[in-house]
């Protein structure tokens, strides 16, 4: 940099040469601002649509939620109808999904993360789990229809609570497996090495040290999986869940209608019972022409979303607690 004085570019002004670079700065900066406004606008649109949805449902349904609505069976008259059967069905289906998917999903995650050698079979299982997450949920319903409701009819009793729960359990298994593996991966290897060095078997180390450390993360995954299952409609419709159910599963005829003791007293009356769940009840009410039923649907949506938000906040709380422990 000896010559500091700006020398003209060699080709500038020369006849027939390319025109000089023009920075057009004001135009470019204007475009820049426009793009930024556009980007923020898109974000606002998404928030606005969500707000529109929530406000609309709250304004339609909030007035409809009362004791009668929560404790009545479906009815031809919208004013007399309620979500009791759907609540009971959702309760039993979700309990069963959790009971099946939790051990199976965590066990599969443990196997892939802690036990399995890196063989072609392990890799096949891994790729397969990734693919299963991309299968449309209604296809799981068809699988449930053919496998659980038809093939295993002697056990499941057809289109019942058990068939529905098994179908949903298969649907959410990939979520639990992936979450379990992530939680296990977050446990530092020093824990494993220390345990093994003291002479523990792999399982002893996993059971006594790794799994407890990973447990909040695992539980978060399970809750998120259940919150996915609780809102699923399509697979249960394909399975053939009923839309008009004037009874609850189990053998408790009166109050409180849902009795966990029934699981011991009369298991067949629960798991081999036809059923409906909240999303199907909502679907049924939406597809009726009368406005009064639409209000019922909105009210049931509020109840369903309330359950979802509750489950998600528990999951988020667990996740932040788990982070605190890791630090």
């Amino acid at each position, binding site marked *: 940099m000896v010559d500091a004085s700006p020398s003209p570019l060699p080709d500038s002004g020369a006849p027939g040469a390319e025109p000089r670079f023009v920075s057009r700065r004001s135009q470019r900066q204007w475009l820049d601002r426009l793009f930024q406004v556009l980007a923020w606008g898109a974000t606002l649109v998404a928030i606005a649509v*969500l707000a529109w949805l929530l406000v609309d449902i709250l304004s339609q349904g909030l007035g409809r939620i009362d004791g009668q609505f929560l404790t009545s069976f479906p009815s031809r008259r919208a004013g007399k109808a309620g979500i009791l059967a759907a609540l009971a069905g959702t309760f039993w289906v979700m309990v069963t999904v959790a009971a099946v998917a939790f051990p199976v999903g965590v066990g599969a995650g443990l196997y892939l993360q802690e036990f399995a050698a890196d063989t072609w079979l392990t890799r096949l299982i891994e790729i397969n789990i990734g693919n299963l997450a991309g299968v449309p949920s209604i296809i799981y319903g068809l699988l449930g229809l053919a496998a659980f409701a038809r093939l295993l009819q002697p056990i499941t009793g057809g289109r019942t609570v058990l068939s529905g729960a098994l179908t949903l359990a298969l649907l959410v298994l990939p979520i639990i497996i992936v979450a379990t593996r992530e939680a296990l991966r977050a446990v530092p290897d020093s824990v494993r090495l220390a345990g093994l060095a003291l002479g523990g*078997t792999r399982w002893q180390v996993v059971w006594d040290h790794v799994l407890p450390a990973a447990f909040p993360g695992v539980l978060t995954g399970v809750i998120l999986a259940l919150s996915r299952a609780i809102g699923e409609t399509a697979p249960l419709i394909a399975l053939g869940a009923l839309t008009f159910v004037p009874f609850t599963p189990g053998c408790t005829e009166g109050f409180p209608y849902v009795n966990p003791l029934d699981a011991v007293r009369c298991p067949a009356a629960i798991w081999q019972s036809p059923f409906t769940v909240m999303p199907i009840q909502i679907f049924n009410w939406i597809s009726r022409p009368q406005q009064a039923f639409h209000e019922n649907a909105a009210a049931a949506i509020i109840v369903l979303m309330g359950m979802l938000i509750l489950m998600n906040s528990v999951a988020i709380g667990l996740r932040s607690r788990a982070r605190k422990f890791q630090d």
Partner: protein
Amino acid sequence: MTEPLPSTGLWQPKRRRSRLVEGLVRAVCFIFAAISILTTLGIILTLIFETFDFFFDPFFRQALWVEQLPQILPEVSEAQRQALADQIQALNPKQLSSGAEALGLRPPSPVAGFFYALGRFFTDTRWTPLFKSADFGIFVLISATLLTTAIALLVAIPLGLLIAITLSEYSAPALRQALKPVLELIAGVPSVVFGYFALLTVTPFLQRLIPALQGFNALSAGLVLGVSIVPLVASLSEDAIRAVPQDLRQAALAMGATKRETIQAVVLPAALSGIVAAIILAMSRAIGETMIVTLAGGQNPQPIDASLNFINPLVPVMTMTAFIVQVSLGDAPFGSLAYKTIFAVGMSLFLITLSLNIVSYWFVRRFREKYE
């Protein structure tokens, strides 16, 4: 060390028991992991088995038989042929061959019926499987599915991409922490709730703007479907955009490019493979989505004809998933033609989404820019 240790009351490891437990646990966990393989096998075998059952259904043999009557009996009059056709249609599908003996005519072979059914499935221009004069043109349902999916992508690609850009390039970390849960909330809304929104909120709203819009239509179904997949596009694209190294941005800015130019000319091209994969995955999700399109899109398969209603977003349509729901809500007994039809439709749906997922996977691997 040859003689066994004297029993001194010291702690002794129970090696044999530990090993037994270890083996048992490993076996059980392996079985649990293998359940995912069984699920895939179950899905594929179920769909293949029931789909073959559909194409081999005697209904198609009878239909082919009636169609072939002019060639089998060229000398018979039209009225007689019609009577014969009615007799064939009335035969018990389970005892086709004995019924054929009674008529004194040879029915087409099952294989011929299979290929006839396959031809009908791909070339019929109407979808009326539950009517007496049944037609099975799967492209009627596929076109409706593609219509709603296209509308959804028109919403989800610009919105999702711009949101991803906002999150990764424009928003402060604190704001980003606040915006992410909003996206998660949208992603967590059950599809039946979006269905409510599309049918009872968006459609009446749009009807005020577009008077020709019918109560059920592909437009509002597609729009809301698009909103429902925005979180998927946004979060996957954001991951791809954030993976672009900071050096590239700084280099572009140092060259005097504005932020928009940096994003458009440097960041987005570098993240392209991830973004395209996200869009393909979102498309696959939109194709398999059920409740929104069933509730808001309607249950009217539009024949593929010159009226072009099958690509008209203002009229009711029927997607593949909506058909499965329609049949499932009615009572379809195991083994009936309607029961088999939903598996044939499910097979088409599965193949389409599976190939999209594979393309997306391949795209990421083939076009990923590696930065070290």
